[in-house]
């Protein structure tokens, strides 16, 4: 643990990086969606309100935001907001499923500055991907990537959430990224949003986690991870990155209705710090909210206190623990020492995420015959 990391645990005056979900609306219904997206929320920020958020981020010198959703490109003012941000010196990286990137849009995107794109792909073939992201979504993503390549966008990102079913495809994902001149980014599956119900069958096994650790060590900084696998550091050699949970300390989430949460994976009242519409705006929430102040205080290692790997893994991911019913001061459910599995056997009730914006399941209505 370096002095710098220690400092970050106390929190910074402004976040290093913010995830900003622009809408809960989405044309897909991925089974692991961390924000349970599908339908727009009527309380979503207006264009003007979004501009005010950008103004605050500019004033706080937040250098870039990760825009997501839902599918952010569904918003009609998507380009307006992105252009307002980049021209204010707030760089944008946005995540998309690629549906709305046709040849013309790709050219428009390629002409913009301070803009980075992340295409979501959860399988290196259609069968693996579509099982998670829905029928046809693999072809959609590949088409979008081809458009970006043809438009000369440059090095965009391919973003993969690692699951039990795609972890054997790491080399194939890398090959796809190389083919498009893109950079591969792989992140950890959290039991958040709709994944609260699918995590158990999708999260990698312990053996697979060991393979992943080795693979990541072999690829170094060429493969991005958003520092999301620091729980694997307990396996030995540390992965590149800050090795700390940044929730409320160096990162946070602004959701589509302006609610500010500690991180993108904890959309739950327990981690709700305030709203950008409150007096004092986002800055006040970041600097003075009780929720974030508490996260920046000393954290107990709890049941992990006597484990020799604590310095390496820091007890893992807060969101992963919370949404599997584990205490926050104990092992991560995917603890590579095996303590998570043991803890899960006696875990408490699993909290439900605060909002569910999933699209309603279509049911066939029939006439009642005997009324």
């Amino acid at each position, binding site marked *: 643990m370096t002095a710098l990391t220690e400092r970050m645990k106390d929190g910074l005056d402004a976040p290093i990086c913010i995830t900003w979900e622009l809408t809960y609306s989405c044309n897909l219904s991925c089974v692991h969606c961390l924000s349970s997206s599908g339908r727009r929320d009527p309380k979503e920020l207006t264009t003007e309100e979004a501009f005010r958020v950008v103004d605050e981020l500019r004033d706080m010198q937040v250098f870039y935001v990760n825009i997501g959703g839902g599918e952010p490109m569904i918003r009609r003012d998507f380009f307006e907001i992105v252009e307002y941000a980049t021209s204010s010196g707030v760089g944008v*990286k946005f995540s998309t499923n690629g549906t709305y990137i046709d040849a013309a849009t790709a050219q428009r995107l390629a002409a913009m500055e301070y803009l980075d794109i992340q295409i979501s792909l959860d399988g290196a073939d259609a069968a693996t991907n579509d099982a998670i992201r829905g029928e046809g979504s693999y072809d959609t993503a590949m088409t979008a990537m081809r458009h970006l390549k043809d438009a000369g966008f440059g090095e965009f990102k391919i973003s993969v959430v690692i699951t039990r079913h795609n972890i054997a495809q790491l080399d194939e994902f890398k090959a796809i990224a190389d083919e498009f001149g893109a950079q591969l980014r792989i992140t950890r599956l959290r039991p958040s949003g709709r994944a609260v119900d699918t995590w158990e069958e999708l999260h990698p096994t312990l053996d697979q986690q060991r393979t992943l650790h080795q693979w990541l060590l072999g690829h170094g900084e060429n493969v991005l991870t958003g520092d999301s696998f620091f729980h694997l550091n307990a396996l030995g050699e540390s992965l590149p990155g800050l090795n700390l949970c940044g929730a409320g300390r160096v990162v946070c989430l602004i959701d589509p209705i302006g609610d500010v949460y500690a991180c993108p994976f904890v959309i739950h009242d327990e981690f709700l710090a305030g709203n950008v519409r409150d007096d004092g705006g986002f800055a006040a929430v970041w600097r003075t909210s009780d929720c974030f102040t508490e996260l920046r205080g000393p954290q107990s290692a709890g049941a992990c206190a006597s484990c020799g790997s604590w310095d390496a893994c820091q007890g893992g991911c807060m969101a992963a623990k919370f949404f599997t019913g584990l205490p926050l001061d104990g092992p991560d459910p995917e603890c590579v020492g095996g303590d998570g599995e043991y803890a899960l056997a006696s875990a408490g009730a699993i909290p439900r995420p605060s909002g569910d914006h999933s699209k309603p399941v279509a049911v066939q209505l029939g006439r009642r015959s005997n009324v």
Partner: protein
Amino acid sequence: MLDSPLKLHPSVALRPEPFGALAYHYDNRRLIFLKHPTIVDVVKDLAQHPDLRSTLSAHGIDEQQWDNYDKAICSLIESDVVVAR
């Protein structure tokens, strides 16, 4: 590097932090941590002096430490935060 005329890359923004500063490079979208307040002052001031040596001297930095500053600046040149002018 002590005799080189240097400057902060025009696409790099610095945000003051308790530990020093956070540098963001708008061209390659990289974040770099400057882990000491004095190095931040030196980097900001590079363009005002003929070379690194005179910048260090103007900031009253002990000559015995110049080697360390030289190394720190070299690593910032590698990450394109500091460039020749």
